[in-house]
């Protein structure tokens, strides 16, 4: 198989020697090199003429357009006309080949029926070389519509495909759409044979003169070129009667192009976005309502809203007491029992000399309240729905062996204290998880008691979420303070201000 390598040049005097040397010294012999010069203004031609086996073609200045992409395509077409190779390689004059590239590619063409072969480039920046990442694997198709394709120096074609491609994509529209992109669209949609070899056989030189250097990612120019890509693709495929799906990428690109190059418009849009975000922030946090509430309501009224007058969050009653009994700063919360479903909470005067004044809140109902005093500052609640005395009974749940369910028979006049102590018999049972479950069950028991049910069934799970077998439950007795031990100074709803008798 004969290989024709078409080198298209414009003002790359510095690099031509390296480029042509890499072609002449190829390990494959049957090569034809065609050098097309696109009216260079430097010494490119003189350098190229020093190489004997290189066929040189010149563009005529009157045929030259002001767009590099069109001139390049023109150069490729003219060079193709005089070429004789079975396989056509395209190369930019500032890039160069690995010395085995032609041999390797030709071998693949021989072994397979591939029509276009694209290898990966090693990027050369000054003297440093690094491999380009093959992004084809990591593409996100929704936001990145186009398949990855490397630079045009990595492309090689069968002769008939190249001829067809040239005829197909050669229309002088979309100057920023270069031949490599056109070839990738042709490969992807028309012949449906566009794969990228995972071999690094081409050296792509990155300089300030490169076309891609003008297109920094996400810059205005980059967006503008991307829009041309979209338009080209749409027009080209429409002519071929191929339908493509509408994609988000196109609309984002369109929007970004709408905004580009117009600073005032951009600033306006940015300002609007900021304002919108601020508005969203303001309205999600309900700031207008809160603003007017702060204006309209006093501090104490807002406290009442925050806590309710008489509930588990109440300070409304405290403020009421503060004002009525002229206790200005000294009454504050001292203790709050952090149970999951508290029935009432203690508040105490802050003044430490006089800790006998309590505020009690019971927001559930009008039942009697019991205080359990653990130590000086800590209290626990106990709540007996029906009786103002309580019968203490020790319950031990026996292992019922074959059954997963433990039955506890509880008499109606028994209240279960929160202080259920679980003795762990089997190390596999997590004490805490059983404890949690029992705490939840306590509420259920309470509810059942209110409903006058006689038997209550609870289930205890171990830490693997299976029902456990060995569990002992004790109920601890604590000293109880009765509300009757206190004088009630003030009572509103279920809130009490009391002093010990």
């Amino acid at each position, binding site marked *: 198989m004969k290989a024709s390598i078409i080198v298209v040049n414009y003002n790359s005097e510095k690099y031509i020697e390296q480029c042509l040397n890499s072609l002449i010294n190829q390990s494959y012999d049957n090569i034809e090199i065609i050098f097309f010069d696109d009216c260079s203004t430097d010494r490119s031609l003189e350098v190229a003429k020093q190489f004997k086996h290189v066929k040189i073609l010149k563009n005529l200045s009157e045929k030259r357009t002001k767009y590099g992409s069109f001139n390049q395509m023109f150069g490729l077409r003219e060079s193709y006309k005089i070429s004789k190779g079975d396989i056509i390689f395209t190369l930019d004059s500032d890039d160069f080949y690995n010395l085995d590239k032609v041999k390797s590619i030709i071998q693949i063409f021989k072994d397979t029926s591939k029509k276009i072969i694209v290898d990966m480039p090693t990027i050369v920046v000054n003297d440093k070389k690094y491999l380009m990442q093959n992004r084809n694997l990591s593409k996100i198709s929704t936001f990145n519509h186009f398949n990855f394709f490397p630079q045009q120096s990595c492309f090689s074609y069968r002769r008939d495909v190249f001829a067809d491609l040239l005829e197909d994509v050669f229309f002088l529209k979309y100057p920023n759409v270069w031949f490599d992109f056109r070839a990738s669209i042709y490969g992807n949609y028309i012949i449906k044979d566009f794969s990228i070899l995972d071999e690094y056989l081409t050296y792509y030189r990155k300089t300030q003169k490169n076309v891609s250097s003008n297109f920094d*990612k996400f810059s205005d120019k980059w967006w503008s070129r991307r829009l041309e890509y979209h338009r080209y693709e749409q027009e080209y495929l429409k002519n071929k009667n191929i339908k493509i799906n509408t994609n988000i990428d196109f609309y984002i690109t369109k929007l970004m192009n709408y905004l580009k190059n117009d600073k005032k418009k951009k600033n306006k849009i940015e300002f609007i976005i900021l304002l919108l975000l601020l508005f969203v922030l303001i309205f999600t*946090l309900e*700031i207008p309502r809160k603003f007017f509430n702060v204006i309209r309501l006093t501090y104490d009224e807002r406290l009442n809203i925050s806590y309710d007058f008489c509930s588990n969050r109440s300070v409304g009653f405290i403020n009421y007491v503060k004002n009525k009994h002229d206790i200005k700063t000294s009454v504050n919360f001292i203790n709050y029992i952090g149970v999951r479903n508290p029935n009432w909470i203690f508040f105490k005067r802050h003044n430490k000399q006089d800790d006998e004044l309590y505020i009690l809140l019971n927001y559930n109902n009008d039942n009697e309240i019991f205080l359990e005093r653990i130590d000086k500052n800590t209290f626990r609640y106990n709540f007996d729905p029906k009786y103002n005395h309580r019968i203490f009974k020790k319950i031990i749940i026996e292992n019922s062996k074959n059954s997963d369910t433990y039955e506890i028979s509880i008499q109606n006049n028994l209240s279960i204290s929160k202080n259920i102590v679980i003795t762990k018999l089997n190390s596999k049972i997590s004490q805490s998880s059983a404890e949690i479950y029992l705490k939840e069950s306590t509420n259920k028991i309470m509810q059942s008691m209110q409903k006058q049910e006689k038997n209550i069934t609870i289930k205890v799970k171990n830490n693997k979420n299976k029902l456990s077998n060995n569990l002992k439950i004790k109920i601890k007795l604590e000293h109880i303070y009765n509300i009757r031990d206190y004088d009630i100074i003030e009572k509103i709803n279920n809130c009490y201000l009391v002093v010990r008798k």
Partner: protein
Amino acid sequence: MIEIFNIFIFVLLVSLLILPNKSLLVNLNKKNIKYSNFEISSLNLLVILNILWFSSVIDINKFYTFLFILFFLTINVIKLLYNFNKKDLFKDEIISYLLIFFITFLISIIIAHDLFFSHDVRLFWFEKTIMFYNDFFVTSDDTIKPEYPHFGTYLWAFFWKFNFLDYEYFGRIFYAFIYTFSIYFLINKIKFKKDFIKYFIFIFIIFLNFKIKWFDGRQDILLFSFNLFAFAFLHELIFNKSVQKIHVIGFLLTVNLLMWIKIESILYIFSYFVVILYYIKGHKKLVLLFSIIFLLLVKYLFYEYYNIVAHIHRDVFPSNFFTYIKNLDLLGRVTQVFLWYFVGIIRNPILLISIIFLFFIFLENKKYYIKHSYLFLIYFIISIGIFFVYTITTYDFPFHMIGSFGRVFLQFSLIFLIPILKFFEYKKMI
């Protein structure tokens, strides 16, 4: 209306307090390095906070401290008026300062409206605040947690005492100011192409992060803010290899404040200590390490001198530690902590988004994180600490963990902000 007006004036005065006034940077600017306005502002804020801390530790009458701050404020305002027409007066950053002021004002309105205190706040933080408000000292602390550090509550009490209306929430408004400023300070470490992106990210972070419950008096929001200062200074010291004294001093001032906020902060200080040990070289490393040890020593001596039980979380670590550990179902507990750790990440939008970004950045460039590895080390140490504490806690397990994971994750949730933004800066996207 009077309240709103007072809130407005209060936030304005606090904002004026941190305007870039170079009077505090005596002897720091020998090499004529030009500091950014935000660096000067941050140092001003940290110095003022450290003065407040100092007055809280040696029990100076709050009124004298207040007079000093008033004096400082007056200098700032006079300087502002004097330089008003000069070109070099933070002209580029005036919008930034206004934005911080505006967001703080918005948060203040919410704080003034929602006056509810959560469990921990009623139980001990507010108790401590009342103690300081009534001009008591730490020696008369007979709240149920006397060993808890007091600086946050002192701040609260201080600004409660010295405002026009004598409402407690003014103390918490100051927390909000530290919160907004610290977020902006961290974001400002990135050089954005456009200021719009900076403002956008700032508001967006507040949008994701802000919850009124963080401002009900709990101290985690202060830990969050001081951690942000620490991350920003560590970024300068480790990533940018800064040799400027302002960063060393700023970091030490932050560490000092951090250790007086909550007991958890010891974990953060330990992680910073390790990071400094490994990543910073030479003279600077010794200065930083010995200063941190000195600051810890000061705290220890303070606790010793005033006979405060300084047992690190006596509720978490029992006295019969080894027997306790033997009887624990360690495997079961670790599994549960592991599970709730991930739930915690998912519940924290900022941390979740950060980790997703980290993952995609890793896919894009696998070597990118090497320069930011110190942050991963900090994160690793914090995570190990979390696992250790919650596995052996004597509190009600797992309720204690489930209830407190939200605020623990808040404290360091913006740890990965800088590497993520730096990546976009490096890609020239922002």
